[in-house]
């Protein structure tokens, strides 16, 4: 994905559009009007107040940081034959939201991104986002494997672990990610026990007692 394509993906949220375009620049802050956030599920009064506050906040990450986050997210979860990429699942927007919701992510994320850029500047004379694909992967390979990374890269390993975890959280809780992982629930059904072929695969069976006393459904 080139830079322009990546930028197109920014700024369109899983949340309401009004909220995410709010407060791009500090000077816009006073004019921002935030609509009441809409939720499909129950929110108590105090919760709604906090949700509104969160959405009214200006963006935490700069455009440059978001670009780096997007590139990293797509390196971690690229499109494959089963599902799309992290940015297609709007994972960068999730990361922007979650660092506001959980401020403990803020310093490690900001600092980690900066650490990455400094590493690239020293090696390639460019920040990470402007490095070639090959250079980016060269750097990522130094921090993506905790057990073989060099000791001097340990801060990068910690950052990449956090990034990997956040991207997995964002991706596998998206509609695309849930379909990818194959979670088949969250829908009314009748639990009739482990499917017959699965019982056979694992060479297990229900006891007579269980078959007699447990709830069962025909068909």
């Amino acid at each position, binding site marked *: 994905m080139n830079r322009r394509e990546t930028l197109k993906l920014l700024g369109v949220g899983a949340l309401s559009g009004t909220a995410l375009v709010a407060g791009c620049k500090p000077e816009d802050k006073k004019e921002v009007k935030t609509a009441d956030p809409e939720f499909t599920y129950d929110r108590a009064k105090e919760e709604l107040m906090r949700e509104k506050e969160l959405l009214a906040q200006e963006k935490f990450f700069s455009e440059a940081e978001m670009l780096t986050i997007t590139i990293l997210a797509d390196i971690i979860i*690229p499109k494959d034959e089963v599902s799309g990429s992290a940015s297609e699942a709007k994972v960068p927007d999730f990361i922007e939201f979650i660092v506001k919701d959980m401020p403990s992510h803020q310093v490690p994320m900001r600092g980690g991104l900066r650490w990455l850029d400094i590493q690239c500047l020293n090696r390639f004379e460019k920040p990470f986002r402007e490095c070639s694909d090959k250079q980016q992967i060269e750097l990522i390979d130094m921090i993506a494997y905790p057990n073989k990374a060099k000791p001097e890269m340990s801060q990068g390993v910690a950052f990449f672990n956090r990034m990997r975890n956040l991207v997995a959280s964002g991706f596998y809780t998206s509609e695309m990610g849930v379909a990818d992982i194959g979670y088949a629930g969250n829908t009314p059904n009748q639990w009739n026990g482990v499917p017959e072929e699965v019982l056979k695969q*694992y060479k297990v069976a229900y006891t007579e007692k269980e078959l007699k006393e447990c709830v069962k459904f025909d068909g």
Partner: protein
Amino acid sequence: MQIKKQTKKYDVVIVGSGAGGGMAAYTLANAGLKVCLLEAGAMYDPQKNITQLKNPWESPRRGASTKFRPFGDFDACYYGWDVEGEPYTKAPGTEWDWWRARMLGGRTNHWGRISLRFGPKDFKRKSVDGLGEDWPISYDDIKPFYDRVDKLIGIFGTNEGLEDHPDGFFLPPPKPRLHELFIKKAAGVSGVKVIPSRLSILTKKINDDRGVCFYCGQCNRNCSMAKADFSSTNVLIYPALATGNIDIVANAMAREVLTNEEGLAIGVSYINKDDMMEYQVMGRTVILAASACETSRLLLNSKSKRHPNGLANSSGVVGRYLHDSTGAAMGGVLPQLFDRKRYNEDGVGGMHIYSPWWLDNKKLDFPRGYHIEYWGGMSQPAYGFGGGIEGLNGKFAVRGVQKEAGGYGKSLKEDYRYFYGASVGMAGRGEAIPLYDNRCEIDPNVVDKFGIPVLKFNVKWSEHEILQAKHMKETFDEMMHNMGAVVTWGGDYNKENNYGLESPGKIIHEAGTARMGNSPKTSALNKYNQAHDCKNLFVVDGAAFTSQADKNITWTILALSMRASEYIIAEMKKQNL
């Protein structure tokens, strides 16, 4: 500032709307008594305030917890460990985590629905091992009420004929899930008993007001769609409202129980959180069910000439004997479940099997038992999904290929798929000994934002609980080994970390702070949950418990509240109240 007195005089004023308060309101309103129900939290109607069957992407934080929902963004219970403007304190060197639901129905809106009767010995533990105190009632006194609670509310399980895990009126249980079949086998090797779980979830229809479980596994979100699990709101309060005999005052933070010259309760004073005004509501009888610690706080703050030590506290036991269930847990992965076939195994909300206490403490180095709860399998993804995969994917060959830990890209996506649904875990929930020195008392220096003096906790585990946790962990380790599981957390237990014993309060089964007993010198309540010192004051939450067995306490709260409520009705008929 003025105090507004409600003109309507009630037969009963109830503080708190969870299991105890809900059952009292239901029983009394159906008997035709006029009831005022005060709730410190917000109004809540599971038919309108819905989180059930939502997808993770509908939450901007993908189901992660917040201060308002510590058990996740879709959990039905709001508030918990940290309530704004309502602090509590702890004596130095002691621990207590205090859960406070702030909503109609309280924590029954999200609880685990584990509904266990106490057994005959559970009421007479002192007679068995010399520790703690016997209850003033026996299993025979409470059995008829357990029976009626079973039928009124609905519960699944099986009659196993186990003396201290009594039979009941059970609906059929669901069949075990795949990992539960492995657990059963592993437990068998270690001699650990496993039977179908006993949860208050309807696997069959019991009446026209409620539906049947449709197996979404989301009881913690409260069953808005079918009312197929027990919550005080769905099953007791809203049905009781239909009698027309209940007025609910939400956002009403009780300040104290009001008493007259003779020392009898006449009503309750409270702050309305919406307008921040002071109110009083009057009743012939007052029932406290604000949760064990809030109830004892209310009693201790209700001082008067007749009750200088706090109400119902001439014995000095109010706030004392505070105890929670013990808890220790372990989790891991089952390699045989890697790359497993996908299907819907949500099942009911919670485990389909559990282990009631199976050993004889006389042969062990700790006096009381515990039960084991289990989990695992293919659950709905939420925030934290796949977390820490770098600690997992280097340890196992993925589809025959040994990879370096960590990584990224298509290979990593394959790993997430490969490991999904292979987790397994277990937790012990045990009985602690209620000790006189384990207590909450009024902090002389701190008030909450309403000006109400707050609780100061002073609780420490004793050797009994620590040794019990050690036994739990050793048992879990053995069972995990038996089924070929690889322990990924909870495996680091030793003397220094109390063998992984959770800090007290964490299991949210607090009880004992206004205990029942035959002697007014050593207990706050008599055998009908009635204050020794004040005949028209009753306590029907966990505070009344003399001890709490190795069973979750809700079913016993419900049975005792029903029993106390019927006693009140009978006493009112006799003009004793």
